[in-house]
């Protein structure tokens, strides 16, 4: 292997060089002998031989080039020189590497999140051929089991079709719920995805029959927590929603299910759904949409062909699964639905939907931070290039090529940025974990594979190389332009012209401009987060404990009695029951109608329905504006009454007094009886704090026709809500022993619903602060350098009688010019940039004047701080000492 010889020659370069010297010496000796034989004296012969041989150094270099990798040799020499130089300037190296590590680390952290959430494929066999079956225009991708069974029947159209539905399963045997994420899966799921069991077996096609046995496949994690990783777990029983399931197998730890950001712990066969839910509705219900369907194209077919074949079959599939109980117009639109496929190699993710935009914003933010860091390092390198001008001049005078000097400078830049990247990867590891804990704030754990893979490494390396080139080129160019004559004459004193000074100031002004963009963005996000957390949402978020109860069996419970006992718990001020709770996920809605109300469209008439007990409004802190609350008399036998929100009152009745008026509510094609309005309450948020829908009606829970299966209880207390949990549990154990319970506080739910906003606001503020710090360092460094460079000038001024006030003003003037120029540029940039975060804002606009003025003030202050020390130093300068140095 020739390259191996070369490498060996390179590594043993001394030995190699000696051998070449011997070879040349032999040649010269032979030549001299020859010349002596032709009559020359020994000395003359030796001289003539040497003369004929020519440039021995050039020959040696060329021979060496033939024997080694010339570039590698030069690189090693450059690296040695660079390391020696950096060791001599530890402070410079440290500042540069840490700035870069922060910049590159921030980029790597955000990129590894983007990678995990948006780019990485599912850890399954051939994820690129997975196709998601969707209905109509590709938007709707949940199916009923009859549809799935019908589609599965056409297994000649595609390979390995399978269905799955995500669910939460309760593993507790009673009392407080122990919920885990899981999936209902068809028999083809594991074989089609190529996911093996590391112990036992997976669910197979043969398990996929009606009336199948209750078996479960568990994740590696659940195997560890439930069974301590014991091999005897196979065949043991797990209680799933109070029903025994037999553990059939354990999955590989790398498999997390079909959704990025979610770890499924438990997989149950679809056919066992009736065991858990009681009744065949899950399997036979034709309007029970709970399954996703995946297929792969048959060999040789494309995704488009598969979609076309499925679309051709759609009419017969729809006819076979038509929901017979639907009204005629809905039935005819059902029959018109078509089927299509969409590639789904990356798996779905609500996390992705929720965070994609935020992560993109953060990526831009960290890219700006890196730019600012690069500007700092470029500035440091420029300053260093000035100091090293003398060295460069000597090297140029000795015959070094300018290209060689540029290469040396670039080597230094690359070494710095790669060192920064290496340190940055460590920062990124911490950062990404911190961010994930943000994403999973409030109990719903986000599970992300944040490992560093080739994509992250490639990204980080690319970022390091690009930033190295960014900040390395200008100083390299600068130093190569050195005029050796002038530089040598100046002997170490700076001979830098206006070019270098301006380059430094332009970099700093650029930093100020970018910092301004980051500061305004951070300010806007922070302001909107503050608005979200402090604006009155129609309820009082503190001091409320929520309990969500699900009754497993059909034994009737008396919710009145439960409430009565809860009210008696020490510390409880009020207690109420409701079907919907603020920031909860449950909800029921209907269309409202009233005499004189003509909605422009269906959405105008759509309202949430909350079934509440007396005292609900006082408990969650929603103000009653007019009329009365629901009372104990509003029971099953009495006439139907309702409270409505201001928005409902305005929309249904305009300016008329709503109290005593009637309205109807319809669901499907059933129209409920009339409700009489007895009160009006303020609007309040339900699904999220950004929710603008104020259409909610409150009807007495006691007037519900069917027995209650699930409900929420709210407690307002004077003591920390957590202290009430045990009391509530024991009441429930007494009154409804089989109920599964979940506790949280209203504050927790609000916090969870704001996790994205909190993440954005916190990180943007953090990175904005980082940018500000870097800009401060840049400003200070440049100003300090300017003052040092102009020692003589300032010394002469002071000697000639300039007041120190004047010197200070001169320094401050210079800094403020740069800061103002930067702010002007920053305003222009921010006008464009803040438009991209407009969709994340709440309660303020992208041009919020307070935020902009605040950012300007902060930057001016930072400019002042950065100028203070150099200005002080300049004004205190001893003119004699400065001049004596001349």
């Amino acid at each position, binding site marked *: 292997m020739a390259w191996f010889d070369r490498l060996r020659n390179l590594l043993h370069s001394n030995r190699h060089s000696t051998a070449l010297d011997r*070879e040349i010496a*032999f040649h010269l000796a*032979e030549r001299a002998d020859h010349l002596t034989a032709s009559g020359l004296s020994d000395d003359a012969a030796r001289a003539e031989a040497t003369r004929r041989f*020519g440039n021995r150094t050039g*020959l040696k270099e*060329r*021979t060496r*080039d033939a*024997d080694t990798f010339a570039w590698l040799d030069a690189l090693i020499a450059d690296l040695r020189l660079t390391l020696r130089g950096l060791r001599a300037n530890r402070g410079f190296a440290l500042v540069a590497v840490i700035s870069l590590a922060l910049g590159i680390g921030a980029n790597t952290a955000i990129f590894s999140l983007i990678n995990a959430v948006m780019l990485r494929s599912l850890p399954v066999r051939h994820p690129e051929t997975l196709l998601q079956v969707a209905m109509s225009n590709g938007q709707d991708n949940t199916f009923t089991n009859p549809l799935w069974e019908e589609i599965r029947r056409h297994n000649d159209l595609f390979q390995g079709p399978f269905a799955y539905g995500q669910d939460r399963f309760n593993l507790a045997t009673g009392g407080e719920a122990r919920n885990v994420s899981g999936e209902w899966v068809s028999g083809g799921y594991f074989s089609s995805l190529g996911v093996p069991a590391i112990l036992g077996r997976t669910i197979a096609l043969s398990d996929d029959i009606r009336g199948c046995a209750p078996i479960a496949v568990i994740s590696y994690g659940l195997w560890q927590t439930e069974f301590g990783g014991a091999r005897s777990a196979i065949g043991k029983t797990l209680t799933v929603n109070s029903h025994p399931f037999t553990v059939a197998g354990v999955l590989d730890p790398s498999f997390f299910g079909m959704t990025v950001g979610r770890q499924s712990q438990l997989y149950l066969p679809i056919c066992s759904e009736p065991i858990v839910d009681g009744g065949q509705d899950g399997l036979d219900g034709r309007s029970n949409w709970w399954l996703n369907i995946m297929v792969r194209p048959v060999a040789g077919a494309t995704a488009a062909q598969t979609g076309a074949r499925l679309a051709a079959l759609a009419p017969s599939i729809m006819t076979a699964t038509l929901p017979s109980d639907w009204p005629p117009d809905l039935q005819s639109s059902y029959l018109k639905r078509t089927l299509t496929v969409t590639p789904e190699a990356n798996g779905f993710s609500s996390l992705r939907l929720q965070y994609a935009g935020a992560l993109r914003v953060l990526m831009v933010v960290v890219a700006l931070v890196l730019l600012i860091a690069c500007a700092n390092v470029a500035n440091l390198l420029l300053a260093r290039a000035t100091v090293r001008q003398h060295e460069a001049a000597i090297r140029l005078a000795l015959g070094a090529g300018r290209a060689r000097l540029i290469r040396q400078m670039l080597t230094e830049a690359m070494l710095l940025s790669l060192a920064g990247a290496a340190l940055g990867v460590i920062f990124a590891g911490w950062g990404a974990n911190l961010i994930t804990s943000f994403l999973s704030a409030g109990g719903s754990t986000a599970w992300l594979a944040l490992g560093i893979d080739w994509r992250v490494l490639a990204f980080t390396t690319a970022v390091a190389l690009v930033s190295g080139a960014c900040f390395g080129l200008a100083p390299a160019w600068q130093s190569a332009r050195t005029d050796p004559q002038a530089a040598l004459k100046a002997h170490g004193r700076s001979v830098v012209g206006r070019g270098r000074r301006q380059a430094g100031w332009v970099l700093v002004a650029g930093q100020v401009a970018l910092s301004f963009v980051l500061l305004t963005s951070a300010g806007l996000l922070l302001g909107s987060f503050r608005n979200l957390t402090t604006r009155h949402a129609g309820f009082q978020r503190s001091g409320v404990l929520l309990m969500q109860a699900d009754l497993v069996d059909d034994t009737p419970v008396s919710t009145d009695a439960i409430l009565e006992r809860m009210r008696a718990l020490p510390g409880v001020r009020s207690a109420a029951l409701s079907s919907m709770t603020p920031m909860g996920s449950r909800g029921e809605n209907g269309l409202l109608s009233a005499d004189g109300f003509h909605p422009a469209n269906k959405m105008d008439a759509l309202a949430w329905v909350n079934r509440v007990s007396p005292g609900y409004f006082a408990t969650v802190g929603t103000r009653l504006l007019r009329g009365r609350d629901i009372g104990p008399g509003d029971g099953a036998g009495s006439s139907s009454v309702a409270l409505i929100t201001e928005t409902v009152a305005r929309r249904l009745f305009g300016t008329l007094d709503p109290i005593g008026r009637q309205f109807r509510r319809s669901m499907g094609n059933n129209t409920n009886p009339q409700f009489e309005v007895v009160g009006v309450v303020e609007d309040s948020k339900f699904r999220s704090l950004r929710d603008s829908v104020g259409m909610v009606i409150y009807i007495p829970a006691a007037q519900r026709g069917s027995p209650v299966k699930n409900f929420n209880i709210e407690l307002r207390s004077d003591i920390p809500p957590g202290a009430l949990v045990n009391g509530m549990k024991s009441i429930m154990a007494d009154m409804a022993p089989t109920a599964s319970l979940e506790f949280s506080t209203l504050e927790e739910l609000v916090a969870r619903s704001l996790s994205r906003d909190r993440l954005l606001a916190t990180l943007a503020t953090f990175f904005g602060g980082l940018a500000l710090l870097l800009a401060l360092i840049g400003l200070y460094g440049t100003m300090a350098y300017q003052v040092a460079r102009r020692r003589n000038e300032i010394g002469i001024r002071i000697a000639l009688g300039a007041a120190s006030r004047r010197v200070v003003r001169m320094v401050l003037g210079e800094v403020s010019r740069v800061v103002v120029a930067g702010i002007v540029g920053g305003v222009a940039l921010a006008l464009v940039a803040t438009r991209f975060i407009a969709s994340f804002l709440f309660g303020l606009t992208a041009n919020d004047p307070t935020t902009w003025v605040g950012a300007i003030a902060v930057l001016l202050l930072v400019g002042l701080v950065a100028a203070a020390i150099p200005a002080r130093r300049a004004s205190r300068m001893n003119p004699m000492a400065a001049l004596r140095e001349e």
Partner: protein
Amino acid sequence: MAKPKNDILQGTLALLVLKTLASRGPLHGYAITAHIQHVSADLLRVEEGSLYPALHRMEQQRLVRAEWGITEKNRQARFYAITPAGRQALTDEEASWARLTSGVRRVLRYA
């Protein structure tokens, strides 16, 4: 490393060196220059400055191999010998040289 295509001299030098080694057996660098000069009746003079880089490059290309030996005058010298790959290269180079010269000759005669 591929040699530059337009460097006729370098290509020729390699051809001459390979031919010399093929006909005379292992030789040291000085003997190669002396031989070429002698056989070409002083028409061709090998520059030492080019010879050693060329020899080392050919060694890297496995066209020649080198080892240290002792000369008649009891000096240590590096002897170069042609390898089978070198013989193959020589055949190719000779053929292409013949084509080149006959082409040049025709052009000089008829153009």
